[in-house]
C-alpha cells in the first residue's frame, strides 16, 4: 500500500501543474475562513456575516462541507490528467512492463484519491472547528459533535466524484475531452430530469428516478444549507412561505453514492484489463 502510494506521489509531486492546482485547492478550502471577514458597516446598518449564525455549531459542519465541495473541480482537473497523461506519455505501458500489475496501477491511483479526499475532509474539519470555536454561540461538546455526518458525506461525495474523474480520464484518455464530457454529463442528467418530469407516467415520480443519477446523487448528499439559516427562515415566514425542506444527510443517498463509487472503480478496472496498450 505504501509502495503504491509513493509511486503515485512521486508522479504527482514532479508535475508542476498538478502541484500548483493541488496547492490552490487547499488554499481555497482554507479561504472559507475569509467569509468571516465579510463585514458591512454603512452608517446605521451594521452587518457581520460571521455573526449571522453561519458558524454556529453544529450548522458550521453543514455550511462548510457544502461550500468546500464546490472547490473539488480543481482536483478534478488534476485527477483527469493524472490518468490521461499516463496514456499520452505511454508511461502506463512502461509501468506495466516494469512489473506493476493492472490492479496495482489502478490501486496506486485510488490510494491517491483516498488521500486527497481524506486530507480535504480533515481540512474542512479543522477550519470549521476553528471558525466554530471563535464565532459559535454554543460551545458545548455535545453540540459540537452533532451533525458530524456532514463530514462523512463530504468524504464520500469527494471519493465518488474523484472516482468518476478517474474513470473518465481512463476511458477518454484526453484530459480536456474528459472534462468536457463531465460537463456534458451534468447537462444530460438535467435533460433526463426535465424529460422525466414532463413525460413520465403518473405512477413514476421523477424525483425518485433522478435521485439515482450519479452527479445528482452526489449533490443530494449535502443539500443546500441556506434554508436552515434562521435569518432566511424569518424572511420566508414574513412572505408567508413554508420552509419544510429536509436538508439532513440521508442514508439512502450515502448508499447510492457508495454504489456509484464502486461502479466507477470496477468499470475503470475492467477497461484497463481489456484494453491492449
Amino acid at each position, binding site marked *: 500500500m505504501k509502495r503504491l502510494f509513493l*509511486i503515485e506521489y512521486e508522479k504527482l509531486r*514532479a508535475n508542476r501543474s498538478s502541484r500548483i492546482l493541488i496547492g490552490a485547492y487547499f488554499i481555497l478550502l482554507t479561504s472559507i475562513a475569509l467569509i468571516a471577514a465579510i463585514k458591512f458597516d454603512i452608517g446605521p446598518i451594521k452587518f457581520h456575516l460571521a455573526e449571522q449564525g453561519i458558524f454556529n455549531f453544529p450548522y458550521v459542519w453543514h455550511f462548510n462541507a457544502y461550500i468546500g465541495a464546490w472547490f473539488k473541480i480543481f482536483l478534478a482537473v488534476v485527477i483527469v490528467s493524472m490518468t490521461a497523461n499516463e496514456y499520452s506519455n505511454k508511461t502506463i505501458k*512502461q509501468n*506495466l*512492463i516494469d512489473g*506493476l500489475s493492472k490492479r496495482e496501477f489502478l490501486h496506486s491511483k485510488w490510494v491517491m484519491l483516498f488521500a486527497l479526499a481524506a486530507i480535504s475532509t480533515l481540512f474542512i474539519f479543522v477550519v470549521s472547528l476553528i471558525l466554530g470555536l471563535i464565532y459559535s454561540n454554543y460551545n458545548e461538546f455535545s453540540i459540537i459533535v452533532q451533525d458530524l455526518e456532514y463530514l462523512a458525506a463530504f468524504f464520500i461525495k469527494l471519493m465518488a466524484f474523484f472516482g468518476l474523474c478517474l474513470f473518465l480520464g481512463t476511458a477518454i484518455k484526453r484530459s480536456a475531452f474528459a472534462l468536457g464530457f463531465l460537463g456534458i454529463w451534468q447537462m444530460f442528467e438535467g435533460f433526463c430530469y426535465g424529460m422525466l418530469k414532463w413525460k413520465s407516467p403518473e405512477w413514476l415520480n421523477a424525483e425518485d428516478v433522478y435521485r439515482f443519477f450519479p452527479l445528482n446523487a452526489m449533490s443530494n448528499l449535502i443539500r443546500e444549507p441556506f434554508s436552515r439559516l434562521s435569518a432566511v427562515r424569518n424572511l420566508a415566514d414574513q412572505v408567508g412561505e413554508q420552509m419544510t425542506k429536509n436538508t439532513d444527510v440521508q442514508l439512502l443517498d450515502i448508499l447510492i453514492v457508495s454504489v456509484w463509487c464502486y461502479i466507477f472503480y470496477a468499470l475503470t478496472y475492467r477497461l484497463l*484489463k481489456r484494453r*491492449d496498450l
Partner: protein
Amino acid sequence: MKLILNVNELTKKFGHLTAVDRLSFSIEKGNVYGMLGPNGSGKSTTLGMILNVVNPTAGKFSWFGGTQSTHQALKRVGAIIERPNFYPFMTGAQNLQLVCRIKEVPKSKIEEKLELVDLLDRKHDKFKTYSLGMKQRLAIASALLNDPEILILDEPTNGLDPQGIAQVRDIIFKIAAQGTTILLASHLLDEVEKVCSHVLVLQKGKQIYFGPVTALTTDHGYFELDATDLARLLKALEENKLIKAVEQQGALVLAYPNETLEIETLSKALTSKGIVLTHLAKKHKSLEEQFLTLTKKNKA
C-alpha cells in the same frame, strides 16, 4: 539449461487480422536470441503479450517455469519496447527512481547504470530535454536497474543517428558479453547477425524458423571459382559427383556441393584435370540472404 520463457501456441487477433499466429518457442538462460521479421510481422505484438500489455486471444506463456504471476516475473525482466516511455516532466534520475520503486530494487543501482550508458552528467535534467539517443540510453539504463535475468529490446536502434546506433550497439555488446540473456527484435539483419546465437523468424504472424543461427540453412555453403579456361572448368564441375549445381554469376562460377566439401579436395580434383584456377573461395550465405530465401520459400 534454465528455462526463462516458454511460449505455447500464442495467438493474437485484431478483428479479422491475425497478428500473431500460434507461436511456440522457448528461451533458455545464457543465449542471445534474435527475433527477425519485416515490419508488421507481429514482433511487437508478441513482445506486448509476453510483457503483459497486450491480451492474448489464445495460447499461453510462462515466465521462469510459471511459478510466479506475470507481473511479479516482469520484475526480473528488463524491457524496452519501441519508443522510450518516461515522464517528460521528471528528471532522468527521478524517472529511474520511480522504476526502482515499481521493480522493488534499491536506488543504489541508479548511478551505476547511468554511468554504463554515459548519462551521469545529465541525470538532473528533465527527460523532455533529452535527445532521442539519450532517451534510448536512459531506457536501457532503466531496463538494467534490476540486473535482469533477460533483457528484451524491441528495435533499439530505430530512429537513431549513426552515432546513436553505434552507442546503443556498443552497450548491447557489453551486456551480451556479461552473459545476460537477450531477446532482440529487429528488422535490421546485421544487427541480429552480430550478436545472436539463436533466431526466431516471423512472417505475417507465423513462425517460419526457430533455432540456432548456424542451423538456419541446411546447405553446406558454396564455392566461387574462376579459371583461364572457363568451358573446361564448367564441364569438370558438372561431371564432379560432389557438386549438385553450378551457375554462372557475372565473371564467376558458383558451385553448390552435395555435402560438406573441403576447399583442398575441390582444388586437387580440378588441378588433376589440368584446370588452372584463378579464383577459388568458399562462401556462406549471409543472414540476410538466408532470411530472404526463407521468407520467399514460405510465400510460395
